[in-house]
């Protein structure tokens, strides 16, 4: 008797009564077969990684590397530094994994680590008093579509620079609220402040950004 027919026979009484039986391969594996880490949820991956299974942590990195990189990129506005900061964030996550209690989502915990890494590493910059000028001007005006795309990209560079010039807490608040859609409460938890302070930071971030972009009346 094959394994498949044995399974069918075992479920035959249930099928005969009109049930629909769906067999789903469990994430828990049979002895001898490597676990399917990609199929595990975050909590199971954390437990496995704490147990010393490095592949589980690799899966955590693979699952969350994009959001961590994006947070870091928003802070520093360049790929090289964002890449270094992302690496540092995951190394810190590995070091502190056993302190993760699962009270918040793993992604929120990783946001917190990434933001702290960025806040510690990014030097406090003095807010420029003058609007930030666009630095790259493109001469090619032959194709209108391409030109408008270039203008958009030029403006995007200016906005990124303006965000990178904001004071650190304002920058963190703006990034988490605008791009990662975290609630004010979540941001307050990450930054160790109150909801009121978070809203005030967000307000000042937008007001400063408006000034830096030259949108002041």
């Amino acid at each position: 008797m094959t394994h498949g027919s044995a399974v069918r026979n075992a479920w035959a009484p249930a099928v005969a009564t009109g049930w629909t039986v769906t067999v789903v391969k469990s994430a828990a594996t049979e002895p001898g077969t490597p676990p399917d880490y990609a199929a595990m949820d975050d909590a199971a991956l954390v437990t496995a990684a704490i147990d010393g299974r490095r592949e589980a942590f690799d899966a955590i990195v693979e699952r969350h590397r994009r959001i961590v990189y994006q947070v870091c990129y928003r802070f520093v506005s360049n790929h090289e530094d964002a890449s270094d900061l992302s690496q540092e964030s995951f190394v810190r996550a590995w070091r502190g994994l056993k302190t993760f209690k699962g009270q918040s989502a793993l992604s929120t915990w990783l946001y917190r680590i990434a933001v702290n890494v960025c806040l510690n590493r990014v030097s406090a910059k003095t807010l420029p008093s003058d609007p930030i000028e666009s630095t790259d001007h493109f001469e090619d005006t032959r194709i209108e579509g391409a030109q408008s795309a270039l203008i958009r990209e030029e403006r995007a560079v200016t906005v990124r620079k303006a965000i990178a010039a904001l004071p650190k807490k304002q920058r963190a608040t703006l990034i988490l609220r605008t791009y990662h859609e975290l609630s004010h409460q979540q941001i307050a938890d990450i930054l160790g402040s109150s909801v009121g302070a978070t809203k005030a930071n967000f307000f000042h971030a937008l007001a400063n950004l408006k000034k830096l972009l030259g949108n002041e009346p």
Partner: protein
Amino acid sequence: MTHLTSDELIDAIEGLLDTARLQHLDSCEACRQQVTGLGSVLNEARAVAVPEPSPLFWAHLSQRVRAAIDAEPQAAGGWREWVRWPVLAPMAALSLMVMALAVAVPRQQPLVSAPLATNTVPADGTHRDEGFAVVADLVGDMDWDTAMSAGLSIAPGAADRAMLELTAAEQQELTRLLKAELTRTKS
């Protein structure tokens, strides 16, 4: 009625302002201008995406993280990491060594000497401990291959960690004994 506070301006651009304050907003040109200005800068910021890195970058980042963690001392295992043969075996061996040292090393004699007992420590400073003798008899003939095949391998860094568990006095004594052993082997 007072103008909107910074909190309320944020609530307004997020569409969360309460009805009473909305009435003020409808009637106050200054507040409306502020909300419009902040809303427009927020929309402009929202439109700016992070440039997508090369598709190869993600795998490269994972590799970098793995390499950086490999270079770290083991941290995530917690107490479970210690309850494994590759760790316990060298720990046990070291503990036995320390016990043997504690028994074998002659203790400093008190200034006022007590009357000599009849069964004193032998002249070479050692005496037989029964527990140590049993362990020594059990493992005395075991060769390296047998120990390895029984899973009694030493994990990298385990001996270092075990050394860190010793007190300063024990570390000094171990150093002294190892030096003495090296000198004896050379001669």
